[in-house]
C-alpha cells in the first residue's frame, strides 16, 4: 500500500481531558467506513457486473464457438507475434480467467477504481454527511486515510473477484488444467495461480494512478460523478496519447502505456521489466496525487 501518510492509529494516543470518551485514533474505523460503503447500490452493482462477466463470456463462447480451431501436434504453431489470449480462452479455467482479465483490464477494471476512489469523499459531500463526520470530529487526515484504504480495498476486491469467479466458472465449464500460453507454451496448474496473482497485483498497482486522480478530484468537488468521470476521462486521454507513436519514448511516462504489461506474467519466462516500469510510473503519479488530496483537504473550507 502506498498511501503517503502514516495511519493515525500508529501514533500513541493520549486521551483528551477536555473531551472525555473521545479518542481521535478511534474515529471512523475502517470497519465502519466499509459498512457505510458496502451496502451502496453502486458497490453491489459493480460486484454484480464483475461476477456476471465470466458467465456472459462463457455464454458468448458457447454461442460463438471456440475462439480458434486448435490445430493438433505434429508441427503446427501459430504465426504472428502478438499475444492473443482470446485464441486460447477456452483451453482451461486458468486460460479463461486470464482472458476475462484481458478483456476487462483496459476499461472495465478502471471503472470500479475510479468509482470507489472518486466517489468516496464527493458523495459524502453531496449527502452533507461529510460535515457531520468532520464535526464529530473525525480528524481530516484520519477521514481521508480510512476512506482511501477502504476505497482501495474495494477496488482490489473487485479485481480479485473477477478472476476468482472466472476460475470457478471456468473450472465448471472448461475444466481445471494448465494455463496454455498464446505463444505456444503452457504453465502448470500449480504455477498458474501465482501468475494470476501477479497479474491481479500489477493491474491493481497500475490502477493506483487512476485511484490517485479520482481520489484527488473527489476531495475537490462535491459532484461524485465529476470525480469518477474525470478519472475515467483522463484514462481515455492517456490511451489516446499512447496511440500516438510519434511521441516515442515519452509514452513510457504515460500510465496507459503499461496497462497490459501484466501479459508479461503470462509468458513462458516471467518478464518483470515492463511491470516494474509500469509500477514505477503508476506509483509516481499516485504518490503525488494522493499527497495533493491530503494537502488540499486538510486546508479546505468545507462548505458542502
Amino acid at each position: 500500500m502506498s498511501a503517503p501518510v502514516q495511519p493515525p492509529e500508529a501514533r500513541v494516543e493520549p486521551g483528551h481531558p477536555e473531551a472525555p470518551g473521545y479518542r481521535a485514533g478511534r474515529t471512523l474505523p475502517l470497519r465502519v467506513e466499509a459498512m457505510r460503503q458496502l451496502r451502496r447500490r453502486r458497490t453491489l452493482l459493480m460486484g454484480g457486473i464483475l461476477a456476471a462477466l465470466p458467465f456472459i463470456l462463457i455464454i458468448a463462447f458457447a454461442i460463438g464457438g471456440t475462439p480458434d480451431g486448435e490445430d493438433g501436434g505434429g508441427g503446427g504453431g501459430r504465426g504472428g507475434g502478438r499475444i492473443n489470449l482470446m485464441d486460447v480462452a477456452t483451453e482451461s479455467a486458468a486460460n479463461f480467467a486470464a482472458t476475462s482479465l484481458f478483456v476487462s483490464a483496459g476499461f472495465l477494471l478502471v471503472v470500479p477504481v475510479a468509482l470507489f476512489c472518486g466517489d468516496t469523499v464527493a458523495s459524502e459531500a453531496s449527502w452533507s454527511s461529510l460535515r457531520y463526520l468532520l464535526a464529530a470530529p473525525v480528524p481530516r487526515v484520519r477521514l481521508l486515510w480510512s476512506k482511501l484504504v477502504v476505497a482501495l480495498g474495494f477496488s482490489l476486491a473487485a479485481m480479485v473477484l473477477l478472476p476468482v469467479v472466472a476460475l470457478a466458472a471456468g473450472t465448471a465449464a472448461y475444466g481445471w488444467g494448465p494455463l496454455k500460453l498464446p505463444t505456444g507454451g503452457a504453465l502448470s496448474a500449480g504455477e498458474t495461480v501465482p501468475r494470476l496473482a501477479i497479474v491481479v497485483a500489477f493491474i491493481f498497482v497500475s490502477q493506483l494512478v487512476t485511484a490517485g486522480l479520482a481520489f484527488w478530484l473527489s476531495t475537490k468537488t462535491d459532484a461524485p460523478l465529476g470525480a469518477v468521470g474525470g478519472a475515467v476521462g483522463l484514462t481515455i486521454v492517456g490511451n489516446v496519447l499512447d496511440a500516438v507513436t510519434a511521441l516515442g519514448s515519452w509514452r513510457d511516462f504515460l500510465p496507459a502505456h503499461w496497462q497490459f504489461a501484466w501479459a508479461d506474467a503470462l509468458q513462458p519466462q516471467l518478464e518483470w521489466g515492463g511491470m516494474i516500469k509500469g509500477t514505477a510510473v503508476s506509483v509516481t503519479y499516485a504518490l503525488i496525487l494522493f499527497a495533493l488530496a491530503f494537502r488540499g483537504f486538510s486546508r479546505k473550507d468545507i462548505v458542502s
Partner: protein
Amino acid sequence: METPTARWRRLLPRTPGRWAAVGAALAVLVGGGTWTAVADDGKPAVQREDRILRMDGVPIDTSYFRAEGSGKRPAVLIGHGFGGSKNDVRAQAEKLAADGYAVLTWSARGFGESGGEISLNDPDHEVKDVSRLIDWLATRPEVELDGKGDPRVGLTGASYGGAVSLLAAGHDERVDAIAPVITYWNLADALFPDGVFKKLWAGIFITTGGGCEKFEKRLCAMYERVAISGKPDAEAVDLLTERSPSAVADRIKVPSLLLQGQSDSLFPLGQADAMQKAISANGAPVSVDWISGGHDGGDNETGRVESRVGSWFDRYLKKDTGTDTGPAFRVTRTGGVDSTDGAALLRGASGDTYPGLRGDGRDIALDGGTETFRNPAGSAPPAISAVPGVGGSLAQLSSLGVGLSLDFPGQFARFESAPLDTSVRVTGTPTVRVNVTASGGRDAVIFGKVYDVSPDGRQQVLPHQLVAPHRVTPDQQGRPVELALPAVDHEFDAGHRMRLVFSATDLGYASPAEPATYTVTADGPLTVPTAPDVTTAAAPLPRWTWGLPAAALVVAAGLLLTARRRTATPAPDPALTDVPLQITGLSKKYAKAVDRYAVRELSFRVEKGQVLGLLGPNGAGKTTTLRMLMGLITPDEGEIRVFGQAIRPGAPVLSRVGAFVEGAGFLPHLSGRANLDLYWQATGRPAEDAHIEEALEIAGLGDALARAVRTYSQGMRQRLAIAQAMLGMPDLLILDEPTNGLDPPQIREMRDVMIRYAAGGRTVIVSSHLLSEVEQSCTHLVVMDRGRLVQAGPVAEITGSGDMILVTTADEVSEPLAEKVAALPGIGSAVRTDDGRGLLVRLDGATTSRLVAELVRLDVPVTGVGPHRRLEDAFLTLISSGAA
C-alpha cells in the same frame, strides 16, 4: 545575432582533441550552460568525397568520410553485403567518421557503380582491391600512419563485407583490427555443409549477385554444375575453400570482434566458432558475439552492433585502453514479448571466456529403438525448417514458442527424451551417436534437428528453425557415427522434452532424388552443451524506474509537510473552562468574495444553561459562524473557544458539541437506525455514551427507523438529524433552523425539547431568521446582520419589560389623545408612533381587551391591535434598510 557560444567557437582552436579539452574546462568553469552548448553542437560535421578509383583497370566506386579538423586519425574500411553497394553502409560510415575516424567505403567488384565481375572475394581481385584502398588511405594527410605507407586501419562489414575483412587481415599485414559481422569462414562449408548442397540459399546468392553472368566464369560454371547434380564435387569445394578466410587462417593475427547471427541458416554459428579457434590460436584477442538476427532475418541489433564495433576500434585503433570492449562471449537472448508494442525483448548473456560449441554439458537420454523412414522420390514434399527471407521473424519467435516447421509422416525418425526435470539452456551444438543405413548402398542424406516439445506434446518448436544436414556415405553406414546438430542458444523449460528428428528432406537443401529407405538407430544419449558460465544479465531498467518514485516520494512529503498551518494551536484558557462558547473578533471572507465579509468582527459569549437564539436575516452570517464553530471552515481572524479550547479543524473538544447545521446529512441507502449507529461508531466514542434510545425518542420516527433514509420525508430527515446531533448528550447543542419543514405540533414539541435540554445545565444555540421561533424558547439572543453583531443579551432585556401593544389607527392620533390614553388606569405609557397613525401602549395591569374597550370609548379609530416588541422593530428596520 551572434550568440555567445558562436563567438566562443570562433575564438577557440578547431582541433577536435583540444576542443574536447576546452569543452571540459569550460564545463568546469561555467557549469551546465556551456556544457549544453557543446553538447548541442554534438558531433562535428562529416564531409563525404565520392571518387572512382581505377584498380587493375576496373573502376571502383568509393566514398571517403571524415569529420572537420586536421588531427591525425585511424582509418576504417567498411565493406557491404552481397547484392548491396557502398551506399548501404553510409550511415555507419558517417557515425564512425564523426567519432574521429577516416572512413572509406566502396562498392565491391560487380556491385553498385563499380565495374568488374564477382569473384567471391578472390585474393587476386576483391582482396587486392582492399590493399589498394589501404594504399590510398596511406596517402591521406589526416590518416594516422604506423609506418611509411602503413596507415592505422580497421575493417568491418556484414556478410560479404565481413569476409573481405577477414581476408584482408590475412593477406595484408597493415590491417590492425577487424570486426566481421554474420559472415563465413569457409564458404564451401557454408554452402555445402557435410557435402549437402544448400540449394535454396545458393540460388538466392547467385540471384542477388545479379545472375550467373555477373560472376567470374569459373564460379558460374561451378554453380551450375552443382545445382544440376544436387551434390558438390571436390573441385567446387576446393574453389570455394581457397577463396575463403579459412585459407589464410594462420595469418589473421589482429584483434577480431566476431559477430555472428543466431537466426542464420546461411552462415551458422559454427562459422564464427571456426574463426575464433583459428584467430585466437594465432594469439590475437578475439570476442564472440551472437546477435539475435542473422541472414534469416530478425533483429540485427544494428545500434548495439555498431556501438560495439566502435568500441572495438576505439580500443585497438585509437589505442584507447580505457575503452571497454565487452565480454569475450556474449549472446543475445530473447526474454519475452514487450507487451507495449509486441516486439521481442532482448537481453544479453555473457561469459568471460568463449565456451565453444561443444563445451561441458548434459547427456539427455533418448527413447531408443530403430526408426525406419522413406526418402521420397524426387525428394518431395520437403520438410520445412528455415525458409530464407521468410523465416526471420519466425526464427526469433521460436524462442517464444512459436514456429513454422513441418515434417511429413513416414519421412523422418524421431527420438524423444523424458520430460526434463529442470530447465536446460543449450548453448552450442548438441551431438548424438547414431547408426545410419540407407537401402541400396546409397548415401544417406538426413537432416538433424532438435525440437522443444511442450509438456502436453502437442506443440513443438524448432529453435531458430535450424537443421544440420548430414551425408552419411556407405562406408560410414552400419556403425555409430557422431552427428552434430544445429548450434543454438535455447532454453528447454522443465517439463518439456527434447525431440531429436532426422528427416529425409529439407526445403533448403538438395537431397537425393532416388527413393530410398533409411534406418536410424540412436546409439547413446543426446549430449547438449550448456555453457554454465554464461550468465544472463538482468534486464536493463532505465534509471527513472527507481528515480521517478523516489522523486515522487520527496514531492509528496514536501506537499504534506508544507500543508501544516504555521500557527500552533493556542493553549486552552482555564478561565473559560465552564464557558460553552466564546467568540472573539471573528472575521471570515470567502475566497470568491474578496471585498465582502461573510462574518466581521463578531464577538459574543454563551453561558451554561442558556438557550441562545442566533437571529438574523438570510445571509447574515449565522451559518458561516456555526461552520467555523464546527471547525469546518477556518476563520480569517479572531478565535472561537468552546469550553476554553480553541476550535481548529477536528479539535477534540468538538466531541462535546452536537450540531445540526444546514439540513440533514445521511447516507441515503442506509436505514435511519443504521445511520445513527454508524455515525456514533465513527465518532470513536464508547457505545454506552450514545444514549441512542433517548435521541430516537426525540426523533419519534417509530417503525420508519428501519427504512432507508432515502424514503424519508423532509421532516423525518430533520428529526433524525436533530436526534443525531443529540447523540451522546453533548454539552453544547447547535441547531440551525431546526423547525424548517416541521409541522406546528412538532415545532412546539421541538421547543419543549430544547428548553428541557438546557434545563439540565447544557447549552443550546438555535439559529433562525424568524423572531417568533426564537423568542418563545430562548433565554438569550444574538442578532446578526450582514456579518456583524447587531445586539446581544437576554431576551427580556432586548424586548424590554412589560407588554407593549401597538395600536394602529385609521386617522392620525393627536397628542392630547395620546396623553388621555396614557392617563387611563392600568396603562403604563402611550406614545404616538413616528408616522402618527398609531400608538405604542405599555400595559401596566390592564388587559388588552380592556384597553381596546377604553380606546373605543375615546373614539379612537382603531384598525388593529397587536403585540409590539422593540426587537422586532429593530429587526425589521435592519432588514428593510438592508434591502433598500
